[in-house]
Each structure stands twice: as structure tokens, then as C-alpha cells.
């Protein structure tokens, strides 16, 4: 890797590790000191490596410099020294000098604990995703703004407010006690689910960034399944869902970035390794007595890895959607359920059910009706597709709908 690519790469992979470890040592109240230390470390790296060339082990170099800088802060920052060091010494009687532990184990533990701190009930849900991207994934305000189609200043302000909340609530960086794990896992999993969905379904045109979001969500989810306490059936089901979905990443857009619909995808481009991983985690999720929405969505995604349109496949998908909607209604699940109904029970029945949904201002609703009326009443089909075209907001959606209208004309 070239040096000009190496530093951004290391920033992405190492920033979050050092931040988590430092915050764990200092307490979340001093997150800004941790951020300064890591920023300074990377600044020094870009200066020194440019002049003297790359060190033998760049990651170890970063850790050593970060540790030294942390030690300097302990020594020279009077306020810090008096307030925090005495606090830390008070709570950890063995530590005479603060040692920053950047071992693999402590890095992993700290990141996992940081995940729970960010997803603490006192932190507003909408702030949790931004904080996760920033602190756990090393995304800057600009990238976050790009991913969420928002502006950089607003995103920066939102992040600052969220960090202030972390500080003022003085959230502890630790795993919740065993009795609370399952309830505290819920917001963690929701955040990872949203992170992944944002990458998978986002309308942002930045494909690399979107793929990064998915990879980051999977990496964090993997950490949950690797720790005995957080290796729950829900966490495995969510990871399984992510594996199945991301197996189609390469097949779902063409080289111009246009969407390729599931039915038209080249299944040889589906990633078999990820499909197998999905099956592995779905098996691991199949313990316990509670069926979560992640289990149901993973099972739906599993059936989608079978390209052949068998009755068995669509009947299973239909029943899974029937259950999913009972757990949690969403317009998109209602539409997908009706599509599965057309495949399992026939278009006539699906048209009657679709028209009951009355999601008239949703372009996907009219696209679905356009699909169902095709070959039954093409005039109605075209009418619905034209309504869908009017309601669709993004260019990729409009392209798909126009293509469907052209096919009917």
C-alpha cells in the first residue's frame, strides 16, 4: 500500500481502537482529550513518515506514540493530573502509573464496551448512529453527512451535542451486568441494523462509502458474537441477515451504478462464502425460545439466496412476512408480503389484498400494483407505473420504473 493510502487506511482501522482504549482509561468525560491525542498521533505520523519513510510496523508506531502522548498528558496537564489521575488511582488501587493497554484483548473489550456506552438508554436514539460511526468506525463528520445526505456543519453540531450528552451523563464504559445484557443489547442491535440498512438501501451515490457502512456494521456485529456475554441468538440472527444481504452486493448494481432488480440479477455474482456464513450464523441463532424480527428477516433473506421460484420458497417467504408483520408493521414489509402472496397464492388474490393496503403516496405501492396488473390488465398496470414514476424521488428508482413502462408499451 502506498503511503498516501496507508494513513487514511490506518486512520479508519486504528483510530477507533485507540479512542476506545483511551476513553476507557480516562473515562468518557474526557473524550476530547482522547480525541486530541489520537489526532496528534496521526498528524505526527503524516509528518514523520513523509520525511523519514515508513516505520517497520506502522500500527505499532501509532500505538507507541499514542501511549507516549497519553503519558505526557498525565505528566503535564495539571488539571488533568489533579482531577482524573487521582480519580483513577482511587478506583484502581494497584495502578501507580497509568498504563495504556493497547493489547488485542483490551482493544476488543474496550470497543465492545464503548458500543454499550454509546447505545446507553440516556443517549437519544438518533444520536447513537452518528456516535457509532464517529467513535466506533472512525468516520468523520463529512463522511457521515455524505452517507445520510445531510450537511457537514449540521452533522458536526449533532455529533458535538451527542458527545456532550455522553459526558454529562457520565456513561460508564463497561459491559452491562448479566441481568441487563438482553435489554441493553436491543438498542445496540437496532443501531447496527440501521447502520447496515443505511449502507444497503441508502440513496447516497457514493457506493464505496455505502459498502463501508455495511462492512463496519458487520465488523461490530461480529465482535458481539465473539464475546461470550453478547453472543446471543438475536446478535447471530442479525449477523446472518447482514451476510445474506451483502452476498448480493456485487450483483445488485451494474457498472454504471444502475440498480439491477433481484429477478434480473446474475446469481453467479452472489458471494457463496457470505451465503455460507449467513447459514452458519442462522444456525447459531436457532436457540432460545424467542423469534425476533432479525430471525424472521434472516430467514426471508435465506430463501432469497435460492434463485429458483419454487412454490416452497414463496410459501415460506409469505409465512415469514405474515409473522414479521405481526411483530412490527412497516409499509415496506406489507408490500413485500403482498408480492410474496402473489407468488404463493396467485396474482388475483394479491391484487385484492394490495388494494386494501391503501399506501397511495408510496411509489413502491404503485410499482407493486403495476407488477401485479401486468398481463392481467396492462392499461391499469401502466397507469400505476406512471403514478409510481411521478412519486419516485431518486434517479435509480425512476430508471427502473421507466424501464417497466417501456416493457409494457
Amino acid at each position, binding site marked *: 500500500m502506498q503511503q498516501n493510502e496507508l494513513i487514511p487506511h490506518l486512520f479508519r482501522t486504528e483510530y477507533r481502537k485507540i479512542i476506545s482504549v483511551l476513553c476507557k482509561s480516562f473515562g468518557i468525560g474526557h473524550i476530547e482529550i482522547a480525541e486530541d491525542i489520537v489526532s496528534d498521533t496521526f498528524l505526527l505520523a503524516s509528518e514523520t513518515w513523509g520525511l523519514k519513510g515508513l516505520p517497520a510496523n506502522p500500527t505499532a508506531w501509532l500505538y507507541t506514540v499514542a501511549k507516549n502522548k497519553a503519558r505526557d498528558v498525565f505528566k503535564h496537564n495539571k488539571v488533568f493530573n489533579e482531577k482524573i489521575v487521582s480519580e483513577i488511582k482511587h478506583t484502581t488501587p494497584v495502578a501507580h502509573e497509568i498504563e495504556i493497554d493497547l493489547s488485542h484483548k483490551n482493544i476488543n473489550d474496550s470497543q465492545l464496551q464503548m458500543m454499550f456506552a454509546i447505545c446507553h438508554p440516556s443517549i437519544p436514539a438518533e444520536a447513537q448512529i452518528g456516535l457509532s460511526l464517529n467513535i466506533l468506525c472512525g468516520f468523520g463528520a463529512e463522511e457521515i453527512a455524505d452517507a445520510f445526505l445531510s450537511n457537514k456543519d449540521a452533522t458536526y453540531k449533532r455529533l458535538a451535542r451527542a458527545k456532550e450528552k455522553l459526558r454529562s451523563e457520565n456513561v460508564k464504559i463497561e459491559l452491562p451486568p448479566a441481568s441487563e445484557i438482553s435489554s441493553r443489547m436491543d438498542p445496540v442491535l437496532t443501531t447496527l441494523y440501521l447502520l447496515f440498512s443505511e449502507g444497503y438501501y441508502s440513496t447516497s451515490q457514493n457506493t464505496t462509502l455505502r459498502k463501508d457502512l455495511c462492512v463496519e456494521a458487520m465488523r461490530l456485529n461480529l465482535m458481539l458474537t465473539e464475546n461470550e456475554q453478547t453472543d446471543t441468538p438475536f446478535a447471530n440472527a442479525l449477523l446472518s441477515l447482514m451476510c445474506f444481504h451483502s452476498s448480493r452486493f456485487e450483483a445488485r448494481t451494474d457498472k454504471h451504478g444502475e440498480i439491477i432488480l433481484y429477478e434480473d440479477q446474475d446469481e453467479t455474482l452472489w458471494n457463496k462464502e457470505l451465503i455460507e456464513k449467513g447459514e452458519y450464523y442462522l444456525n447459531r441463532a436457532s436457540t432460545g425460545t424467542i423469534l425476533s424480527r432479525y430471525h424472521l428477516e434472516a430467514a426471508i433473506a435465506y430463501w432469497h439466496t435460492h434463485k429458483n421460484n419454487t412454490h416452497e420458497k414463496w410459501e415460506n417467504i409469505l409465512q415469514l412476512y405474515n409473522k414479521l408483520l405481526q411483530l412490527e408493521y412497516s409499509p415496506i414489509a406489507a408490500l413485500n408480503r403482498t408480492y410474496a*402472496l402473489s407468488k404463493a397464492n396467485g396474482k388475483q388474490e394479491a391484487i385484492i389484498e394490495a388494494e386494501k393496503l391503501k399506501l397511495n403516496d408510496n411509489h413502491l405501492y404503485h410499482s407493486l400494483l403495476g407488477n401485479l396488473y401486468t398481463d392481467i390488465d396492462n392499461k391499469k398496470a401502466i397507469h400505476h407505473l406512471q403514478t409510481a414514476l411521478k412519486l419516485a424521488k431518486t434517479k435509480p428508482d425512476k430508471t427502473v420504473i421507466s424501464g417497466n413502462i417501456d416493457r409494457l408499451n
Partner: protein
Amino acid sequence: MKEFLLIFRIEAKAPEPSLSPEQIQGMMKPWQDWIGGLAAQNKLVGAGNRLEHDGRVIRPNNVITNGPYVDIKESVGGYTIIKAGSLDEATELSKGCPIIRMGGSVEVRTIIPMN
């Protein structure tokens, strides 16, 4: 939006001979699809439950009888709770209930919240 209790009644029959898993699945499917359809319209509050045929009725003076079936043919086989804008809409939503095709009935009752 109000909530409505749908009470399913059907004539009590002798217990069916034991069914294969496929037959059971075949009997369940219309129910799963109907409940799924209500949920897809965001009208389902709770899928409810089926009830066993056997039961007890307790009356004043500790009079207990086996089942309510002495003077009525139909017994309650299950219930579901839905939400709708009016009793008319709730009635409309109940028309597709599989119990009707089986010769049974649905009683739609408006729920009065306890508060």
C-alpha cells in the same frame, strides 16, 4: 381508531382423527394468510389464540359445569383483536375470516378501554 374483539364461533364437532403435519399446515394456512393480511393493513392488535374445546363454567353458589355447550350448538373456538375506525370497518375486515368458510361465525365487539 378503536379496538375490536373478534370472537370466532363454530359448531362443536367430534374431535378429528389425527392429522398429518401437511394436513395441519393446510388448515393453518388460510388463518396465517388472513392474520398476515390484517397485519399488512396495520389493523392487527393481537393475533389472539385458539381455544380448546374443553372448558368449565362457574355460576353462583359454586355451580360448576363442564363446558358451555348444553343449550348452544356453537362454541368459541378462538379470538383476535383488531383496530379500525368504526364498527362498520371492523365488520368489513372480518368478512375474510376463514371460520366463515368453515360454516362458523365471527362476532365483532367494540372494546371499551379500561381506564
